């Protein structure tokens, strides 16, 4: 399957976080690389969504949509900064 980028989960993250997250800066907990969510590597509908660091390939985030809930695991990031003070 062809990987996409974080633009493709903009809508999903909008639902989860209530705001656009594609411009939010992530810091990879494995290699420390900083990147906007838009530039991460995304695998969709795998069954869940897997978001990986473009620099080292480690998993940054997993989103599993289960019974109408979005279960989000951000443990692959050491920071997720919307730059809006929140």
């Amino acid at each position, binding site marked *: 399957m*062809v*990987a*996409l980028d974080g633009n493709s989960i903009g809508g999903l993250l909008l*639902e989860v976080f209530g705001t656009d997250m594609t411009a939010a800066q992530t810091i990879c907990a494995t290699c420390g690389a900083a990147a906007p969510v838009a530039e991460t590597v995304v695998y969709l509908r795998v069954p869940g969504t897997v978001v990986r660091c473009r620099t080292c390939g480690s998993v940054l985030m997993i989103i599993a949509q289960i019974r109408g809930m979005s279960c989000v695991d951000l443990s692959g990031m050491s920071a997720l900064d919307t730059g809006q003070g929140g």
Partner: protein
Amino acid sequence: MATAAVRGRLIWQTATVTSVTTETDAVRTIGLDVPDWPGHQAGQHLDVRLTAEDGYTAERSYSIATAAGEPVAITVERLDDGEVSPYLTEELRAGDQLELRGPIGGWFVWDTSDGGPLLLVAGGSGIVPLRAILRHRQRTGSDVPARLLYSSRTLADVIYHSELDQCRDGVEVSYTLTRSQPPGWTGYSGRADAALLGKIAWPAGQHPLTFVCGPTSFVEAVAGSLVALGYPAGRVKTERFGGT
């Protein structure tokens, strides 16, 4: 960082299709009347959700083809093995309803205050958000210089051809055809590789702002070539389109 489970907010809304326009054999522009549309920026997209009678649903994202302030429209390319695009391009008609969510995107967007000079590089249907950017530039009377390199398989695959041919006032449009060229073709041939980009792209010293959109392999090859030309990665924004 933490794990959390969140019930999705209700942000899907129902739009009515106002028009379905043929752009090329495989491509349609779908005009939409969205009752509570908050407005959008050039470069943003929206998500479409289809529901079959038996409850099966499929969701896909499509770039908005119009500038801020214009009615919402998306341009969709029919993929032969697609699940959603054949429906949108062959079955959908004016008057039908379409469930959608948007506008989406805060990174791959351009407004006049972002400046330039602009370099826009499109592969196939990747032209859609870049056309929205050019329309926005024109509607606002911006004088930011812009160059577009648009890669298509054949001349018949070029979307918005006559509109792009009419660009002037600081916009330079270049086409490259990768599979076949018509007799007398004066545009480029072959892939948007480092050599072609080197001819078209602004010198890195002018600090251009770049938007690259198209299939993943296209975007990655182009982004790599631009970085090799001295473009800082932070000023090259990318949007990858997938398959079905």
